[in-house]
């Protein structure tokens, strides 16, 4: 599994498409608390974690329980956990849940890349 993180609009998906030859029909863009792991590239994982927070689901447990299904996937998540602690409780929970999930996924990943203004920085 490859984990790609980075800020908003930094070129994470563009990098994945070019380097791993991902076609548009292989991308699942998260928009709720369910993930279609049949797609090779799982994008916007931060939207999945936000939905999980709203539905009281632990996103790390969700990933752990589907491990066999994503162990060869390209996972893309925005690093929303770098800014100041938000005032709202939901945003705070989102920030923490996303940070924890990325830490778990980093541990499982063969490669971890961070995108900065379109440039890849290899973290693992």
């Amino acid at each position: 599994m490859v984990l790609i993180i980075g800020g908003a609009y930094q070129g994470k998906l563009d990098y994945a498409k070019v380097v791993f030859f991902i076609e548009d029909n292989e991308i699942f863009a998260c928009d709720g608390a369910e993930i279609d792991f049949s797609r090779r590239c799982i994008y916007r994982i931060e939207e999945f974690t936000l939905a999980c927070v709203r539905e009281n689901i632990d996103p790390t447990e969700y990933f752990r329980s589907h491990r066999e299904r994503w162990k060869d996937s390209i996972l893309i998540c925005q690093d929303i956990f770098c800014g100041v602690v938000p005032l709202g409780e939901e945003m705070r929970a989102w920030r923490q849940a996303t940070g924890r999930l990325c830490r778990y996924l980093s541990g499982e990943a063969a490669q971890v890349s961070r995108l900065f203004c379109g440039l890849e920085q290899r973290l693992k």
Partner: protein
Amino acid sequence: MTVFVSGGAKNGKSSFAQDLAVKLAKGGKHYYVATMIPSDEEDRERIRKHLADREGLGFETIECGRNILSCLDKAEKDATFLLDSVTALLMNELFPNPADGKMDTDAAWRCAEDLVTFAQSVRNAVFVSDYIYSDAACYDETTEVYRAGLAAIDRRLVAACDTVVEAAAGNFIVHKGEALL
């Protein structure tokens, strides 16, 4: 030589960029292109701090908040330019009349083109931007237009510059090119 510097607020970008511009100038002419148009006392205080920081470094300050290529009319091009910041420039270009709050949706594209032309027109250029992409917040549409626009400019400039540096709590990560300091 062209250099792009970004990073979080108060992480050392401006000081790093100033020292670097002085070094690149090698005793020659060096300009500080100030893009912020102050709108309140907090802005003016920040400008005073930056002016005090630059004292003794020999910069000639040019204030240019919009239409960035126009500042080259009043300057020697065979010199070193520190532009601080891309962030403020986009803000001014995105809102030509801050009072009416209307956005110029071509602003980011135009800024990116102008800044690349700027980089190609001078001996040395150092650009300072702000990394505002990694926080847990759902912003309004105007803020997202601004964030997406700044990211598009950053990526265009990063592709065009020789060296790309990220400031992180006073440390400097070189993402492209040589470590210069």
